[in-house]
């Protein structure tokens, strides 16, 4: 039995003729630009990769050095994402829940890794972790080496993706109503229980989206990593660098094969992030 539905003209998705001029011009310019700047190179890469042929593609991707570079990249990116999951969550919490001097400055500092060129970040981290550096010297006494070791890659990736978790979790935490926590508290729940049972589930979709974004970004990071990694094959060589090396060797087939694999990986991460964000939006809407 269909009930009468009230049309909401403001939210209508029905295409209607707009009286505003400039549709063809603006859309035409946008499509032309996207075609030339974004789609043309991606298409050229796909064509080049198709030229490589299936058997050769498999041989390139499953060669020990390529596999090792994927292993290094995935492991270090996962560790960097783990660091940012914890630090980012704590940082968002501090920025939303506590008042303290310098809070605005701290909030502004969060964006430094996005504004700072990755090469500068790599240079700075290498200086910090060098044998005689501010961090490197004390760590060397404990026998820990970070620069020119996998740990250095983790540091570079972690630094460049710091803002993702903070900036996705922060707004959700700000929107949380205190009533839910109070209800928990009146029922005698401890802080930890309230966090685990009420707060964390609410921010979880945003937290997961932020962590996935940080991981995706780390997979493709190049500038910061090459400075600090030492770039030894099988140990500290990331996929992006191997692509670069294959190009310098004029091995265009290998460069195309590895680059197209990175592109595929980026698309998979994009789909995952979009799915998580869609879930996050549904979650947020359902809660309101």
């Amino acid at each position, binding site marked *: 039995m269909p009930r009468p539905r009230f049309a909401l003209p403001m939210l209508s998705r*029905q*295409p209607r003729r707009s*009286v*505003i*001029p*400039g549709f063809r011009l603006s*859309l035409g*310019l*946008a499509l032309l*630009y*996207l075609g030339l*700047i*974004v789609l*043309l*190179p*991606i298409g*050229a*890469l796909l064509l*080049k990769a198709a030229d490589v042929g299936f058997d050769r593609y498999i041989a390139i991707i499953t060669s020990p050095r390529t596999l090792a570079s994927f292993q290094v990249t995935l492991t270090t990116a996962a560790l960097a994402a783990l660091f940012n999951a914890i*630090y980012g969550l*704590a*940082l968002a*919490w*501090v920025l939303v829940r*506590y008042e303290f001097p310098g809070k605005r400055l701290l909030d*502004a500092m969060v*964006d*430094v890794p*996005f*504004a*700072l*060129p*990755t*090469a*500068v970040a790599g*240079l*700075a981290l290498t*200086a*910090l972790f060098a044998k005689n550096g501010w*961090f490197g010297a004390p760590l060397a006494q404990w026998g820990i080496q970070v620069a020119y070791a996998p740990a250095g890659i983790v540091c570079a990736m*972690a630094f460049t993706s710091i*803002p993702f978790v903070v*900036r996705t979790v922060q707004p959700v935490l700000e929107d949380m109503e205190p009533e839910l*926590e109070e209800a928990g*508290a*009146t*029922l005698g729940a401890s802080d930890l229980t309230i*966090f685990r049972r009420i707060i964390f589930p609410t921010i979880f979709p945003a937290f997961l989206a*932020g962590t996935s974004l940080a991981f995706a970004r780390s997979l*493709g990071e190049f500038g910061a990593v090459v*400075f600090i990694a030492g770039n030894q094959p099988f140990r500290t060589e990331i996929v*992006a660098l191997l*692509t*670069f090396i294959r*190009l310098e060797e004029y091995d*265009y087939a290998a460069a195309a094969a590895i*680059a197209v694999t*990175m592109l595929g990986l*980026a698309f998979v991460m*994009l789909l995952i992030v979009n799915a998580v964000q869609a879930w996050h939006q549904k979650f947020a809407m359902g809660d309101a």
Partner: protein
Amino acid sequence: MAHPVNRHRLRVGDGAVTRSVILTLVLATTALALIAPLAVIFAEAFARGLPTYLEALARPDTLHAVGLTLLTALVCVPLNTAFGIAAAWAVTKFSFRGRNLLLAVAELPFSISPIVAGVAYLFVYGAQGLFGPFLQAHDIKIMFAVPAIILASLFVTAPFVLRELVPLMMAQGRDEEEAAVSLGASGFDVLRLVTLPNVKFALLYGAALCNARVMGEFGAVSIVSGNIRGQTSTLPLQIELLYQDSHAVAAFAAATVLVGVALFTLVAKYLIERAERARGEIVAPRRPGH
């Protein structure tokens, strides 16, 4: 332990011990992870005093790199701003099929590694690329020259202005534009007098971000530029060259210029957000971006 709810009762994590432990850990990590990297750049650049710093900054190859970086930004920022305005106008002032697809394509550069972008451009304009034979036959040099640097920079920064404009222009709707048109304003007048003034802060912020990223782009540019010393090295590439040649002070001195650009961008962001709030403008939610 449960007491009647008081309006001012403490919330989770507000206990003195919990609060100070979390706050101390976060601030200590921030000092190590965010402040130390910025500080070490200046410490190393000024390690041998101001005169050495200035001398290192005034190297001809570094000055050339600064010039090339400025030129790239001067071309890329206006082009991507114009693209952002045109695409945002099409997507927010009209309803058509494929709007979301257009936005998704425009955001692709954010998801793609700069290295992949560089390789992709090589396969368009390089000798082995799609247009390689044609370009060689007509003696047009794009790869390993300034045009390739500009093209690769356009790719990596294409979405910056657009993604700042779209959520805001969506939220503002079309009423003001429709009113202006019905009063007889032409399309360009509407854009100039109605739309752009409404989004000027978002526009400025997008352009500032785009500028910072253009000036700092490393991966894509290092592939397409060929990194020819004194000819096609932009500032980030110059920093790497100097560092590899063990000219540490010169590398860090060049890096201070880019740190300056980054700090300028953050200050601009802060001022723009404050101005937005003061104006009571409809503020679109900021998404985390690059």
